[in-house]
């Protein structure tokens, strides 16, 4: 399998590079495939490099010793992960696991570091990406500390629906792991939203029937 320049160009780090440079980076990238639920790497392991998802979805998560999981984010196609460990050279700050069949490529840290040395313009993309990651984590702190579980669930449902095409379907357990709670609380909150007429379950779908009211709920 050959890594396409178009995949690299879709990643903000590489958007400003010319075709020749992209081709040389693509030649250095290692392509890997993962089965659903296969672990890609674990928190605390040495950083293998920057991972770029071509197809499938990857969950980035922290796990407690008791097996409780907090999903930090879900990576969709044409997005990268493990950026922080690439930049600071430390171990992986979280674990990564395939949610469905995943194809991705890995660019080793030394390759990334040499690119930053050669192309100072990449630094702008680095700052933008780290700022986005920081904004996402601040939002998560806000959700976990200031919003009710039903409010968090309402926000998650709206976010999922807004992503449209690339979004991966979520189980109640996975919703709980996103929201920092347990499955039973998600079930209870979902019933609450159903009783209020904001959402309804139709087979394999949760349909948002009153978006404006759900947005108000998400603020609580």
């Amino acid at each position, binding site marked *: 399998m050959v890594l396409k320049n178009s995949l690299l160009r879709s990643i903000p780090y590489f958007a400003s590079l010319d075709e020749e440079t992209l081709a040389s980076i693509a030649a250095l990238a290692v392509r890997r495939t993962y089965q659903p*639920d296969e672990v890609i790497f674990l928190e605390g392991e040495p950083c293998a490099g920057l991972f770029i998802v071509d197809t499938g979805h990857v969950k980035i998560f922290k796990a407690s010793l008791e097996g409780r999981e907090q999903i930090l984010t879900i990576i969709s196609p044409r997005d990268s992960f493990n950026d922080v460990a690439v930049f600071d050279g430390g171990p992986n700050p979280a674990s990564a696991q395939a949610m469905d069949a995943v194809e991705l490529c890995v660019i080793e840290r030394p390759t990334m570091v040499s690119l930053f040395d050669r192309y100072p313009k990449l630094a702008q993309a680095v700052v933008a990406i780290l700022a986005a990651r920081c904004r996402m984590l601040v939002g998560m702190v806000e959700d976990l500390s200031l919003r009710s579980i039903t409010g968090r669930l309402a926000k998650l*449902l709206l976010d*999922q*629906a807004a992503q*449209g*095409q690339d*979004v*991966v*379907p*979520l*189980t*109640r*357990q*996975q919703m709980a792991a996103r929201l920092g709670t347990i*499955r039973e609380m998600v079930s209870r909150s979902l019933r609450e939203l159903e009783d209020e007429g904001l959402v309804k*379950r139709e*087979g*394999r*779908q*949760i*349909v*948002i*029937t009153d*978006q404006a009211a759900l947005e108000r709920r998400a603020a609580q």
Partner: protein
Amino acid sequence: MTSPDKIMPQIDPDKCNGCELCVAGCPTGAVAMQGTLAVIARPDLCSYCANCEDICPTGAIGLPYQIVLAPQRPAT
């Protein structure tokens, strides 16, 4: 977007303890035992009622949901 009819209950073989409660609780016979593990043997029969997920004592079963906005009604 994943086609809704392709979404199926997920059973984690590492968590399944083979208790067969999901098989007994499935109203359509979609769940069956394969050796010591529960599997969705007849996906075409699955009505997505979530009985299996609710009844599983180890949390091995999960039903993924696609989340969508209701279609907009045309302006009158």
